[in-house]
Every structure is written in structure tokens, then in C-alpha cells.
């Protein structure tokens, strides 16, 4: 029996809310799965769809994008802009066959350390069940291999 599959999850978060929420989970000594890697951005408005594609190229089995709740954005509107982009990009990814279960979006405030913890555990569990995102990773493997003739 091989080792159980441990997914690689990349999270793109804003520094004012979700990053702070993740810090709070830490200072509260909550425990969550170690599969997530956080990339800190000033605001969800800064999170480009390209980040998600690059995370997938680097072998992410799941991606989380998270920021301040509507109305709470440090930059007043960044998360509203982000929300529209996500709506559109998510539809696009789904249409090209990138499963919605692998690309998650959330609002996590600086006070929601518990929500962060639950979410990471939840997503990790869910993606563990889904298994590795082989279809996408295959694209990368093909690049790395020799042409067959």
C-alpha cells in the first residue's frame, strides 16, 4: 500500500483580512492540515487569474483565494472587483474542465481564525478525496519529457 495522498494547496490571500485571520489561528494555537502554502498579497484586488494557473502548473491540487468580507476591504472596493473576476474566471475554468472543487474562494476576516482553520481542513480533506489533479499535472509532465521522435 502506497502512502496516502497528500494534496498540495496554494492559497492567495490579502494581508489585511485572511492573512491576519491565519495569524489569529496561529496565535490561538488552532491546528490545521499542513498542506497549504500561503502567498500574501495586499488585497484580493491584486490576485490575478494567472496566479491560479501558475499554481496549477506547479502541481497544486487545489487553490484557495481569500480576502475580506464585502464591505470590509481595507482598500474599500478591492474585494468587489475581485469577486467579479472570480465569478468570470471560475466559470471559465469550469468550462474548460478544471473542477470547481479544486478552486475555492472565501471571505475570511482577521477575526475568523476558526473559519480559516475549518476551511483549510475542509478543503484539504475534500481534495485528498478527489486525489491529485493528474489531468493538469500531466500537461506539465509532457513538457518535461523528451519528444518521442
Amino acid at each position, binding site marked *: 500500500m502506497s502512502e496516502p495522498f497528500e494534496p*498540495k494547496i496554494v492559497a492567495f490571500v490579502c494581508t489585511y483580512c485572511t*492573512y491576519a485571520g491565519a495569524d489569529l*489561528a496561529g*496565535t490561538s*494555537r488552532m491546528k490545521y492540515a*499542513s498542506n497549504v502554502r500561503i*502567498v500574501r498579497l*495586499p488585497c484580493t*484586488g491584486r490576485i490575478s487569474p494567472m496566479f491560479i494557473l501558475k499554481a496549477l502548473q506547479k502541481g497544486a491540487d487545489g487553490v484557495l483565494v481569500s480576502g475580506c468580507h464585502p464591505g470590509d476591504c481595507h482598500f474599500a472596493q478591492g474585494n468587489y472587483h475581485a469577486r467579479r473576476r472570480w465569478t468570470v474566471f471560475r466559470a471559465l475554468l469550469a468550462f474548460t474542465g478544471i473542477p470547481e472543487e479544486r478552486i475555492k474562494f472565501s471571505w475570511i476576516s482577521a477575526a475568523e481564525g476558526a473559519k480559516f482553520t475549518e476551511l483549510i481542513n475542509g478543503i484539504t480533506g475534500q481534495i485528498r478525496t478527489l486525489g491529485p489533479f493528474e489531468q493538469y499535472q500531466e500537461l506539465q509532465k509532457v513538457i518535461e519529457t523528451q519528444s518521442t521522435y
Partner: protein
Amino acid sequence: MAKIGVFVCHCGENIASMVDTAKLTATIADHPGVTVSSEYKYFCSDPGQETVKKAIRENGLTGVVVAACSPRMHEQTFRKACAEAGLNPYMLELANIREQCSWVHTDRDEATEKAIEITRSLVEKVKRNNDLKPISVPVTRRAMVIGGGVAGIQAAIDIASAGREVVLVEREPSIGGHMAQLSETFPTLDCSQCILTPRMVEALQHPNITMMTYSEVEEVDGYIGNFTVKVRRKARYVRMETCTGCGDCIQKCPVKKIPSDFECGLGNRTAIYTPFAQAVPNVPVIDRTRCTYFKNGKCKICQKTCQIDSIDFDQQDRIETVEVGAIVVATGFQVQNTAIYGEYGYGRYKDVVTGLHFERLASASGPTAGKILRPSDGKEPETVVFIQCAGSRDAAKGVKYCSKICCMYTAKHAMLYAHKVHHGNSQIFYMDIRAAGKGYDEFTRRAIEEDEAGYIRGRVSRVFEENGKLIVRGADTLLGRPVEVVADMVVLATAMVPQPDAKDFAKRIGIGYDEYGFFNEAHLKLRPVETATAGIYLCGACQSPKDIPDSVAQASAAAAKVLGLFSKEQLEREPVIASVTDATCAGCWGCVIACPYNAIDRKDITDRNGNVVKRVASVNPGLCQGCGTCVTFCRSNSIDLAGFTEKQIFAEVMAL
């Protein structure tokens, strides 16, 4: 060639107990571009920081990664250490291996692996960091206060008294605002004018205050510390410099039957007028639309009357440009048009009036010299019905919010009525009595208990006239039965709503507003007097309905913010701002639309002969707050954000 120093902190046992710091240090030491990789018990301690500084100096490090706690904790500490060692403070990244690693994981191997990945991803980021310098913006230490009501006056006096110049702009001929119209004020029953007029005069005479009455802000350009404001100085046709305010012209003006706005139409004014006797400045204006001379080319009686030749029919509006460093918006409110309640008969029956009308009737300087006389026949009303929430808290017809002041002023009206008409009977229809505030609940109790105001919990369905009386039909919801009151006068506690041109004004000066037109604060709780536009502040009822104490408190708060800004000649700002690559910008202006701060302008690119060859977006460093929304929008990738550049993030992700 990058020379990166990585400093792995144990944080006592906080990190070291869950992360194999030795393994982390050794693994990172092997990472390309890493010159120094060391571990220590507490890098934030003095000896720890010294170690970092020494390593920077001795190895000529080009970047530093401290693998420790959250950047929200110690980023500033280590930035300072870098700067002291001669390294640009922005060549630092913190790898958060405590809050987001050692504290939240339970498996040492997993936590160590994660710590390694976090750290090397930030090594890759820091390799691509750039030297940044805090942005220094010169500050014009002069403020503009827009709106000369009690809030604006307070803010202006506070700023001016602290030694800074203030330009106070008021669109009416006199400052004073709504407060000047009020009779007495709750909960102390001070005479409104008695407490306000000294403040008005103080503002006028203050050496640091330049007053621009009968003037409107047309355009605001620039950014925090450096606004250029165009103010329209409307023609008064009276020379401010010479007029003594003797009032002879007003006495002689033949056009006397113009309903006075100040008196809510209950009194009249002349064509050359001051809105009220205590006007500040006490210089009349000629109402061009009503003046016989302007209409027929004949009259000029005022000019003939004036002994010092202060009437000037040739005056024109002119635009004055003012440079200021901060703007306080105190443009106030208006009373909602109560005609939306056809069933209350407002406008149809003369004796159905608004609360503001009642203020004028109760005011000693008002049209009835303080006697409560009903408008239709000038008789003293025997029974007055007050209807609260006539517009507020009514999603269907009025506004959803509570106007906050009506419970209090209605109680006050009932008291004033009781004091002036001793046998009078007042009945108040209310939904709830909201009387939170110092001395407020006691005040309403007094109205009920001492002044015998009758409170009926319920809504009024209809007001109609019968035999010269006003029949108020409603429901008493506590008793659960219909009620009918025969009244001589009905007073509607109308809602406070934004000024009619509030949204246009907000767009003109570049601040946000809510669905009603009240201006948006930057944060409802934590930044209540700032707007999202740096350097523009709010106070008074333009932000939300509020009473005098709240308006004044907010005005002083806004003034404190302005004075804080003015405490230095230069404003230092985080250099995390966006910038545009001119060569590739396609000029679609999506970024201009998306920017929450109006921080992006259009810039002309000219050839050496000065011909415009293209127009590109240009970020105003004074306004940009560094959210990066524009960067993500830009399809040609022509905008980037310092500190979080595309190259940095790419490297960070590709190193995961």
C-alpha cells in the same frame, strides 16, 4: 548577483519545538543565491538584530529573509535593522513559520517541510525586491472646510485655533446652516442662536479663517497635501469690502413679498437681503431673479440708498483657485420633501407643517416672534398633533434609516408648545422613542411627565380637514384600537436626507457615497471621519443623520485628523504603489475606472516637438494606496505594484 541572508528564528521554543530549524537552515544554505543562512534563539532581540546587521555589513547582503513570526509582528523591526546596516529596508521579507506553521501544525516533519518551502519561496521573492523609498509628499498646510453649518464652523475654528489657515466655503449668503434656523436645542433648551452666533462671529473674525460665503466648490484636483480647489464666488452685487451691514438697502427695497427660505416660507424677504438678522457676514446679496433692476433695468433704489456706494450691479461670478492640503466636507443635510405623504395633507393644508417650520414658529427671531401661531389664520392652536417617523424608517415611501434626531426634537417641540401655550394639548404619534444620549431619555420623560405630552404608539393613516379642524386618524397599537384626534395643527417629523446635489458633489470632489447620497467614511468604526480619498474628511450630517453634539464632536475629530496631517511639512507614505509602463499602455482606461481612489489619470506622451503621440495611464503617487486592483485589470500587464510586483509573485509561486 543576489546575496541573500536567511535568518531562522527559534522564537524560543515557539518555532524550534515544531520545526527542525537546523534542517531548515541547512537546506536553505544550499539554495542558489543564499550567502548566509543562520539560526538563533530570538532574532528580534537586540543581539539577534545585531547578528542580522553584522551579516548584512560583512557579506554585503542584497536581501534578507527572516524566517520567524508574521510580518504583521516584526516586519518593521527588521526593516529598521536592515536600514541601520545600510540595506534598503524594503529588501526584506518575513517568512511566517510561526503563526502559519509551527503553531498550527502537529507533525514535525510536515511543519519542517512547509517551513522550508515558505522560506525558499520568499528567498526567490526577495531576490526580485527593489530598493524602495518612502514617498514624500509636500503638504500645503492650509485646510478647506466645505459647508458653514455648525460642523463646518467647529472644524474651521479648531483648525484655525491650532494655527493653520482655513478657507471656509458656504454656498448660502451666510454661514450658520440649519442650526441657525432652530429655536431651542435639546436636551438643555439653550437658545440655538445664542450658542451659535458667537461661534459664527468667532469664525468671521478669526485671523486664520478666510470665509467664502455665497460660494460653491466647482472642482477638486490633486491629492492629499496638494489639492487645488476651484471655488465659484457667486456675484453678490454688494461690495463685501465696503458694506457696513447697515441694512438701509433692505429697508428700502420695493420687492418685499419673496417667501424666505430661511423662514421656510413662513416669512418674507426682500430682493436684496440677508437670510436672517444675525447673518455672518452681515452683507446682503441681491437675488438677481427677483430684483426689479435686473428684471426691468429700472429701480436701483438700493444703490441710491447706500451711502457708501457698495452696490455693484456689474459684479460677475468669478472662479477662485485655492491650494489646500486637506478638505473637510461638512455640507449637511436637507429635510425630506414631505409631499410623498399625500395622506398627511402636507402642502394641501396650511396647518400641516414640518418640524423645521415649527422651529421657526417657536424661534424668538422667527416670523411670529416666538409665538406658536398656526399658519392658516395666525391663531394659537389648541391641539397640536406631532407625527414621528414621517419619512424615516419607512422603506416603502420614505427612507429605510432612522433620522436619529426626530424623537428628541418632537419631545422638545411638545415642551416648547406646553411652555408657550399653557392650556395646549399635544399628542405625539410614534413608533419607538429613541432617546439614547446624555440627558436624552430624561428629556423625553420630562416632556411626558411635566409637560403632559400625550404619546400614542402607532401610525397615522390619514389627516383631513373637517369644519376647519384637522382630523388625524390613526391607530393606537398599544391599545389595539383606532384613534382620531381633532387638531388645529399637525407637525411632521420629517426625515433628514442628503443635500439634493450630494451625489454630484461627491463625484466632483472624488469621494464615495451610499445608496442615499450620504458620504462614505473610510471605515464605519475605525475611520469614521476619513473618506477613502486620503486628505478628505467628513463631519456632520452629510455623513449620516446626526444631532448637534455628534456633529460638533465629529467636526473636532476631523479637525484633529487635519492637524495630524499638518503636523509635518512632508507626508511620508509607504512606497507600495502602482506605476505604469508608458511604452505598453494601450490607454483603455480600465484602470482609471477600477481604481477605488481615483488615483489614475491620463497622461500625454509627447514627442520632442511637443506633439501628443499617445495618451497613457499615470498613477498619482499621492493618491495610490497600493491595492493592486489596477494591476490585475490591465490586460497588457502595463501596471505593476511596488513591493508585490509581477516578477516577485511569479518567482514566489514558481518556487513553491
